[in-house]
């Protein structure tokens, strides 16, 4: 039965994708041989304003003389079937914006009659706040609250939010125009399919890799390398976790490495927490280094068109510095535990450790290694082929599936469709908030706060992201912050170097250190620790994690200041 729902979901995704591709913008209008009036509409942030209705009325006529819809670039063209010889009014109407009426001057009318064309100056249309604004904001905040308090699964929460928005738009909007929030076609345009396919491709790749036993082997190798010295083992495990998280999602990394870490700790006669907590903090740090390391980086990279190579070049040194800072901090926090641990263990336990750390699928691992290396090359140099990362991820995953020939039901099961639906729903909810102007308000607020000061801007974004990501899910937070970052990047001199986006990336990731709920990898690790009889309380994590948040964010701040 589960299989049927999964295939239905796949069909839904494909149909939605086809629906977007087949959607065409309405024609701007037909040229009837008469006059033409052209122009461009902008929003208060000087961004193009598409899908605004422009109509021309003459006298007391109810029927428009001409009408058009503004295009994606904000431009419009009004075609008149016959020459215009009398004054007229142009009415510009769009949901969530004020209705503007513009009357031509005598000179404009004269130009139109003489030349048959008139180009209007750019029109900035002010926003308006109505019931739709408050509904969209309430839905977004409600969704965040449901996710943060775990009253609802996060995918269910976004689908709930999406449903409310559509029901109010279509049912409420029929009776009251100012209840219109976002229609289905516009909603689909907010879904970033590059993000969806990039995540899907990486999920399939990870699914093949995780079954090979490589993570467990690496943890055991770390134990042998450290010769049982816990302080050294912690450092090696942090490096392993950070590097793994740079290329694979950190939830999977912790799911695979945490159980064997527990075994190693028990064999050394110590609590697993002095190894698990440094590992999960390192995984939050390592994920920032590459485009595919965290879902937030994938969101940022796609929105701001930042390549895999750019993430690597601009952030990796900062990530390394943050990791070193984290290691020093963890060694100081846990040095007593490390000193008290055993360096030797019984042969029985060692034998069991070795048995559980085998590479179980060496052939698959070798193939995954080759495909992974190829994918890395295309991630790094794909720009030369105009190759988007999503294509690299899906093509790489497909190549691996064809080469490895795993059980397809198993592979389909490993693709987390609920997470993909979560992202789709999230894009729609954030799109609604953006559409009603709430994000613009936040952007204006921050813009007024920082003015033209680029340094202040990225510092504010970095710390806001870090602190808020500790309290709320960093994925919806980042999705909502992207238009704000975009606005700041477009308006502050010098921000073209994308420093604000990089600050957002680091802040959103390092915020995961702050609390147990700061990142899903924290929760998964805590779950495994609790299974083993070593629960990590919220307070325990806060005491260890929050200072780590401060340390790594300060280091990030220093790196960004140096680099940019």
């Amino acid at each position, binding site marked *: 039965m589960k299989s049927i729902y999964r295939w239905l979901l796949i069909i839904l995704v494909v149909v939605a994708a086809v629906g977007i591709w087949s959607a065409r913008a309405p024609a701007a209008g037909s040229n009837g041989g008469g006059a033409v009036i052209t122009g461009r509409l902008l929003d208060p942030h000087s961004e193009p304003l598409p899908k605004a209705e422009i109509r021309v009325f003459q006298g007391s006529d109810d029927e428009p003389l001409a009408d058009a819809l503004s295009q994606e670039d904000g431009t419009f063209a009004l075609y008149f079937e016959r020459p215009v010889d009398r004054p007229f009014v142009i009415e510009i109407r769009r949901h969530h914006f004020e209705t503007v009426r513009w009357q031509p001057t005598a000179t404009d009318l004269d130009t139109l009659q003489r030349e048959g064309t008139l180009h209007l100056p750019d029109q900035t249309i002010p926003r308006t706040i109505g019931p739709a604004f408050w509904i969209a904001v309430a839905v977004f905040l409600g969704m965040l609250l449901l996710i943060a308090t775990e009253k609802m699964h996060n995918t269910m929460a976004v689908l709930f939010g999406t449903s409310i928005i559509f029901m109010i738009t279509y049912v409420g909007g029929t009776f009251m125009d100012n209840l219109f929030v976002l229609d289905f076609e516009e909603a689909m345009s907010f879904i970033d399919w590059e993000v969806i396919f990039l995540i899907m491709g990486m999920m399939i790749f990870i699914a093949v890799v995780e*079954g090979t036993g490589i993570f467990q082997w690496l943890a055991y190798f770390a134990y042998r390398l450290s010769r049982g010295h816990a302080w050294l083992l912690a450092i090696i495990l942090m490096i392993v976790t950070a590097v793994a998280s740079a290329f694979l999602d950190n939830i999977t990394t912790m799911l695979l490495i945490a159980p064997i870490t527990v075994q190693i700790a028990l064999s050394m006669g110590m609590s697993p927490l002095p190894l698990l907590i440094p590992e999960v903090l390192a995984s939050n740090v390592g994920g920032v280094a590459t485009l595919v390391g965290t879902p937030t980086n994938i969101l940022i990279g796609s929105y701001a068109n930042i390549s895999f190579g750019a993430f690597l070049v601009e952030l990796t040194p900062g990530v390394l510095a943050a990791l070193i800072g984290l290691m020093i901090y963890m060694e100081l926090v846990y040095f007593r535990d490390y000193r008290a641990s055993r360096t030797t263990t019984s042969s029985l336990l060692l034998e069991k450790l070795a048995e559980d750390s085998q590479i179980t699928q060496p052939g698959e691992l070798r193939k995954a290694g080759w495909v992974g290396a190829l994918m890395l090359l295309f991630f790094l140099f794909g720009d030369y082929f105009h190759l988007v990362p999503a294509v690299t991820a899906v093509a790489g995953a497909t190549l691996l599936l064809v080469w490895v020939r795993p059980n397809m039901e198993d592979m389909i099961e490993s693709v987390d469709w609920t997470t993909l639906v979560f992202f789709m729903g999230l894009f729609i909810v954030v799109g609604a908030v953006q559409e009603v102007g709430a994000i613009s308000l936040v952007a204006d607020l921050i813009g007024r706060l920082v003015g033209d000061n680029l340094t202040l801007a990225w510092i504010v974004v970095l710390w806001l992201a870090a602190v808020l990501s500790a309290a709320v899910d960093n994925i919806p937070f980042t999705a909502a912050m992207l238009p704000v970052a975009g606005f700041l990047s477009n308006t502050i001199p010098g921000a073209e170097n994308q420093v604000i986006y990089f600050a957002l990336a680091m802040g959103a990731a390092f915020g995961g250190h702050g609390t147990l709920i700061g990142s899903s990898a924290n929760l998964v690790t805590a779950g495994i620790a609790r299974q083993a009889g070593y629960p990590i309380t919220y307070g325990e994590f806060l005491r260890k994690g929050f200072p780590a948040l401060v340390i790594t964010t300060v280091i990030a701040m220093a790196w960004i200041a140096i680099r940019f």
Partner: protein
Amino acid sequence: MQPMKPVNTIVCAVRGGKASEPTTERATALARESGARLIFLYVIDADFLGYATVGRPSVTMTQLKHMAEFILLTIRARAEEQGVPSDCAVREGKVREQIRAFVIEQSADTVVMGKPTRQAESDLFTHPEQDTFIRELEEEIGAQVILV
């Protein structure tokens, strides 16, 4: 609480960690005194994986099973040091259901488990839940329950 009936098979439900040590010590001592067969039971309840919406569940469960076996190995080693041989078993599913099913399967007459500590992160049961469970084991299955 002293056992009221002859003890032939003891099932000790454990999870590992410091909190389980008194429970395993009590079960070991009881097995040594009575000569009963001792089985340590570990139940993997993977509900927490609801947070982990990626990865192949089968791979994750294998890792958790290895971890459970290792924990049981350390517990059995401690029992061996006290001269008490033991068996162990790992089950997957809801803790209460799996303990109940295992007790029936092994025809166990004694169950040893830990009391709730009032720390939500540590406890598998709350007090009321455990009281209900104990009644179930004692009245329906006829096993005596020793809380540590």
